[in-house]
């Protein structure tokens, strides 16, 4: 059993958890994820590891409540335990000194982006970061991202903080003022990563993305998380979760993520009627 050591709300539906999992923390590298199950007969879901503390023997997960499992998790308190944390899974991010790196994080994607930005900076790259969200209260880790970057640009769709607009607008701004990048790392909702990649392909900036397809086992056993990368089929859980963003078929990924839309709604509906727990309403309409 994996105990919740710390829990903090970062914004509407966004929670940070620190859980005791010394064996997961020990060999973890940035970019890896865990498969989590919060109750017996619960589902197995992938969550990127935002951070670890090997002294404390803990992993930090930042989770946005979107459905039954993540909403139920949000009701849990410090001292409670969950039955499964499996990891660290996936291939770690390739951190190398390449020159100038552009880190782009959207919404909850800022969480997995942070350790990578930090590692890229620590190894000697110049790191410029763009983080964006729909609204100011959905931005997370701004202070940490500021520390991890030589320059940080914030964007919000509604203009409540930073530059009004999308992360892609901010990328164009940077390029327009003469910035050059050897590498881009983009993490966030698939639609955001898709459009960042369309832009960076135009601008000739090699781009790594971290994909979040539906998973079950997380060890390459079921093929649920398969994605088309170029003309190959890859399993995000063992070949990824990071891939060359210019080769990923994002439309297919986005479609496949909707496989259980109906069941997800049903499950959340059942949970809400049984417990009264609901998702926070999100700025700009439904989440």
């Amino acid at each position, binding site marked *: 059993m994996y105990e919740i050591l710390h829990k903090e709300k970062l914004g509407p539906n966004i929670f940070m958890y620190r859980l005791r999992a010394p064996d997961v923390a020990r*060999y973890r590298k940035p970019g890896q994820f865990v498969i989590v199950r919060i109750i017996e007969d619960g589902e197995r879901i992938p969550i990127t590891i935002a951070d670890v503390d090997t002294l404390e023997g803990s992993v930090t997960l930042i989770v946005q409540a979107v459905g039954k499992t993540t909403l139920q998790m949000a009701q849990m308190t410090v001292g409670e335990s969950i039955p499964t944390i499996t990891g660290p899974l996936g291939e770690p991010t390739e951190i190398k000194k390449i020159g100038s790196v552009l880190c782009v994080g959207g919404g909850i994607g800022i969480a997995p982006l942070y350790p990578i930005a930090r590692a890229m900076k620590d190894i000697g790259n110049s790191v410029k970061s763009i983080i964006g969200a729909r609204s100011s209260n959905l931005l997370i880790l701004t202070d940490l991202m500021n520390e991890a970057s030589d320059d940080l640009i914030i964007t919000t769709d509604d203009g409540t903080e930073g530059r009004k607009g999308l992360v892609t607008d901010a990328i164009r701004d940077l390029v327009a003022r003469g910035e050059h990048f050897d590498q881009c790392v983009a993490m966030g909702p698939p639609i955001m990563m898709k459009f960042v990649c369309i832009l960076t392909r135009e601008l000739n900036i090699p781009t790594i993305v971290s994909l979040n397809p539906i998973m079950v086992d997380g*060890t*390459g056993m079921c093929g649920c998380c398969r994605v088309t990368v170029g003309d190959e*089929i890859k399993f995000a859980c063992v070949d990824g979760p990071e891939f060359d963003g210019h080769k990923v078929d994002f439309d297919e990924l986005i479609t496949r993520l*909707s496989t259980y839309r109906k069941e*997800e709604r049903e499950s959340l509906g059942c949970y809400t009627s049984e417990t009264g727990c609901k998702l926070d309403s999100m700025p700009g309409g439904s989440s």
Partner: protein
Amino acid sequence: MNFKDRLKIQPVEMPEQDPVVRITNVEEVPLGYTPQMAMQEAMRCLQCKTPFCIEGCPVGIDIPGFLKFIETGDFRSAIRKMKERNLLPAVCGRVCPQEEQCQLFCTIGKARKNPCESVMIGKLERFIADWERKNGEFETPPSVKPSGKRVAIVGGGPAGLTVAGDLIKFGHEVIVFEALHKAGGVLVYGIPEFRLPKSIVQSEVDYLESLGVIFRYNYVIGKTIPVQVIIDEYDAVFIGTGAGLPRFMRVDGENLLGVLSANEYLTRANLMKAYDFPRADTPIVKGRKVITVGGGNVAMDCARTALRMGADRSLIVYRRAEEQMPARLEEIHHAKEEGVEFHLLQNPLRLLGDENGWISGAELIKMELGEPDSSGRRRPVPIKGSEFIEDTDALIVAIGNSPNPLVPASFPDLEVTRWGGIVVNEITGQTSVQGVFAGGDIVLGAATVILAMGHGRRAARAMNLYLSSGRWVDLDKALDLCRAEVR
């Protein structure tokens, strides 16, 4: 009772759930023998002087031995005799292809010219295992002095569980690292609830724990802990990580919604209990007309699960003919009884989707049998111009699995074959790395539970000799000498 009389006894039929009822539940189909039925069936055994049935058993169970005890009603001795060679009889009795193993060689079956009329060894194995479990009569063997040696078993499936059970008896410290949150491997994620209740698997695991085996769940060796660290920290290692790499057809449309590998479909249904959604949280694709591509036990399991998930029609599409299907006869028989349709000599060319990206049909081509291929079976050849569309809203790919690459990929010193199976010494299960043994599907590719157990049995013997003698080179010769002495 003399031979003639025994030969005359009709095989005792196993009562089964009615097909119409059973596709609405996930309970077992065969309902089990009563003690009277078991004793009667066991009477059919001639106690042959040369029991060929034993040679047909991959773990060498003393079949006439345990049958004699059942015949006399001494069930306690029967299970003891069984467990000398097989620690998972409740599992094997349910999933072994006995008609290809022990029952194939049975004298009675030969006399009646029908292996299906052999002594029902499998059903009796199941009976005696269930008797022990129901009567709460698990015996703990006498405790053994600790050897001071530590063994790591990577993978808690049939091979790993067998090694664990055998090695714990020698006083070694045994730790099983299991990637999933439950042990059993295919027993728990692959084989459906209605063929092998998970409570039975749990019971076997509990038994091993009672003997002192330690289970660590949610440990993916190669990720959670590097393989090298395990090799350094343990005196011997057994790798039984299985064939959990699904094979896909590589046709257009395979990534459409509603197309799943058999592993995914069965894992959702069995391990994750999707048959109980929304009480259990994991959903599963529920098609009205489900196609399962494949002809093995896994394909049968998928097709029968689809019916239980509410499908109106469940089709098997298989590119060869029925005689060539690798599935166990009992599974084919049960599938047919339940209404699974067998569309044989057909193969998918591509999959078609609707405007929402969901599968709407499969373009199939008809096949005919030509010359034998490398497996010895007649090769299926497409019939030109015979393409047609079969409508469907869910398709399961059950065409086989390959060895899971995770451990070999994270540890390149381990020699593997071209297709990813770990290379081992046939007699000992030794790999190319000192102290490391392997067995089961990770060596063979997707095979059977009993073969995995046979590997486990072999490897445990060799590992024990390695641990006590320190000998690695020519361990197989030393093992042979050992066995010769014991005999």
